[in-house]
Structures are given as structure tokens and as C-alpha cells.
């Protein structure tokens, strides 16, 4: 089982990811589905931040002119998390705008009800 007992952060990220995914799958409400997707995003950020951390080192901001790589944590995951946050904000805004359009058309947020109304329109 390798390092299962020491990787608490990664385990928390995985559990958060699964919680968000079950929200996405089980909730019939569109807004709650979007919240589930946001929880999944947060789980990915937590995982990346945990991968960048190195025991006993500080944030990658040069203090006192120390330019030794063994003094700072890995700066690459921080940049990746930034990219992820920006994309997730954009995707959430776009999905919520589409939800508003659906609500205006069908007067409900329930995905099953929207599907039923759509099928009735087609008949």
C-alpha cells in the first residue's frame, strides 16, 4: 500500500473530487450540478498544491538573496492552479448563463422536468 498512510492531502483531494462528482451525477437541480463541478475543480487545485509542497521549505519568493533550489518549494504547480482557477470561473459563468436561459424558457431548474417538457414539445 506504499505511501497511503502519509498522503492525507491527496486522499482529501480524491474524496472531495468524488463528492463533487456525485453532486454532478445525483442532483437534478442544474445549479447544484454546477456547484458539484466547482467542488471537483477545488479538489484538483488541492491535489496540485499538495504535489508542489516539499517538507520544510518556504514559498518561492526570494528572501535575503538565497537562490538555492533546495530552499523553496516547486513553483510550477502554483502556475497550473492559477490557470485552472481562471478557466473554472469562466466555465461556471458560462454554464450559469445557459441555466438562466433554460429557466426563462421552461420555468424550472430541474433537468428531468426540462427533458419532459422538451419531449412534449417534440411530439
Amino acid at each position, binding site marked *: *500500500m*506504499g*505511501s*497511503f498512510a*502519509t*498522503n*492525507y*492531502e*491527496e*486522499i482529501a483531494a*480524491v474524496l472531495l*473530487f*468524488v463528492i463533487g*462528482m*456525485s453532486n454532478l*451525477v*445525483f442532483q437534478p437541480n442544474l445549479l447544484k450540478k454546477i456547484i458539484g463541478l466547482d467542488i471537483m475543480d477545488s479538489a484538483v487545485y488541492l491535489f496540485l498544491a499538495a*504535489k*508542489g*509542497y*516539499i*517538507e520544510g*521549505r518556504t*514559498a*518561492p*519568493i*526570494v528572501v535575503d538573496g538565497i*537562490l*538555492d*533550489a*533546495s530552499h*523553496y518549494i*516547486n*513553483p*510550477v*504547480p*502554483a*502556475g497550473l492552479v*492559477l*490557470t485552472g*482557477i*481562471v*478557466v473554472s*470561473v*469562466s*466555465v461556471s*459563468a*458560462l454554464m*450559469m*448563463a*445557459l441555466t*438562466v*436561459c433554460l429557466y*426563462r*424558457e421552461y*420555468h424550472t431548474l*430541474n433537468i*428531468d*422536468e426540462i427533458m*419532459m417538457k422538451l419531449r412534449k414539445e417534440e411530439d
Partner: protein
Amino acid sequence: MSKKNPNYRNSFADKFTRWVKGDYDPIAGQMEMNAPDKEVFGDERIRYVHLHIVKSNNYSERMFEEGLAKNVRRFTGLYKVFGAIVAIFIACLLLWTVSYLPKFGDPNAPENNEVATRYIEQGLSETGAVNIVTGMILDYRAFDTFGESCVLFVASCCVLILLRVDKDEDPESRAIEDMNDRHYEPRNDTILQKVANFLVPLMIVFGIYVVLNGHISPGGGFSGGAIIGSGLILYLTAYGFEKTQRFMNEKVVKALTVGALTFYCFAKSYSFYTGANHLHSIITPGTPGNILSAGLIVYLNICVGIVVACTMYSFYTLFRKGGI
């Protein structure tokens, strides 16, 4: 297929030629091309806005007929069972993967390779940024950050397309919009206004501080822009659209965002061009630790901050009233 072939009409090639010329539309008649009539939103809209809160959510009784309800219930049960199986399977798979990952905080993990070492050891002398992450995202990978800003800009454009309420619409629906707005948001709330008087200048000044210090301390354009945007949103909730539209209307937002993105593009193109061709560049790293150091990073941070603040503000106004 030649044009003399009797089957040429209605063939793919013919349709394609007509589509290129512009007199054939493959999706005409198959999907809704125009916006729905205003009747859908008329009296109906007032009714659902005020009654929907009271409505209970026992949708299955009023939505489905008797025979259909049984099928729907069976399908929902199956869906839940399969969903639970998939969720548990993915949880077990990911936990199993975690157990094979390197230990948390291990300095010899494979991701702590020569890339990170290079960024840390050469970053300060090459970019002049004390904050190595800022130096990385706004100098080495600046085009990536440019793409991120463009993603934000495109997202706000898409939300504008989806939620726009036209200005020249009849005053009646405008009045309905206004009434709905007042129904949910407080107007001239004294407590909110007093708190906003104190907080909004602080938030905006703090946001500008975070943007300008992006290369010498934690922060940068994205976080600072988000702080400035939330300050603007607080001002808007406290004082209403009449006050904010004096300085943040559609024209200002458009000019700021497009100007910032254009400046970013040209500035970074110049520095990449000179860097790639070994030409002499007028941009120097400067003294590390000063505000005006680190070459282009300060200016790029300001651009990113402007784009993020405008996007946050326009998201809020678009969702609230369908226009900036």
C-alpha cells in the same frame, strides 16, 4: 461527382458549393433561428417570478401521467444505483492510485525536477521578479497567461450574448426588469451604504496594491483584479446602477478590456521577438525589489488586473440586469 451526373442535385458536393456561395443553409428549418416572442416573457414572467418561490417541488405528481410516472421512477432508481456504482468505483481507483504516489513533501519526487530548479535558480536574474511564480507566469509563460485573459474576455462575451436585454426594447419589459431587480436587491439600504462608504475605497486601494506588488510579494493581476472587481460590485449593490454607470458603462468596459489585451499582446510580442532574434531590447530587469523593476511584468500585471476586474464586474451586472 461531375455536374452532368443526374444525381448531382442534392449531393454533398452540390450542397457544399451552394453553402460556400451562401444560398443554402444546412440548419435552416431544423433549429430555432430567432429569439422567442416577447409574449413568453410578458405577464407570465411576473407570475413565475413571484409564485415560483411558493411552488413546492413535488414535480412528479403534476408533471407525469400515471403510466409514465412508473417508468420514470424505475429509470430514476436504476440511474441512482449505476451512479453510485460508478462513483464508488472511481473513488476506489483514485485511492488505489494515491497509494502509489510519492510521499507527501518528498524532495526527491519526480515532479521536483530540473524545470523547477531552473526557474528558481535563474528566475531572479533573468526576469528580475522576486516572486518566482510571477516571473514564471508573466515572463517565461506569458503567452499562456495571455490566453487565460482571453478566455476570461471570451467568457464575458458569451455571457453577454446569452443574457443581453436590448436597450431599445419596449419600456414595459424594462419596467418589469426593474421591478424584479428591486424585488430581490435592497435599494438605498442605510447600513449597506455606510459599510460601503468605509469598505469600497479600502478594497480598491488594496486591490491596486496587490496588482502593483505582484512581482515582489504574493499577489498579482488575477487576485488584485478580483479584489477590485468585488469592490466595484459592493459599490453597485449599495448605490445602484445610476451611480456606477457614470464611470463603468459598456463603452468604458469595452475600451479598458480591449486596450489592456492589445497592449499585452504587443508588449509581449516585442519582447519575444527581440529575445528570439538576439536583438537589443529596451526592457531591462532593473533592480530587484523596486516597484518599477522586472521589465514588463508590472505593466502586464496591470493589464491582467484590468481585464479581471472588468470581467468580474460585467459578470455581475449581466446576471443582474442583462447589460453592463
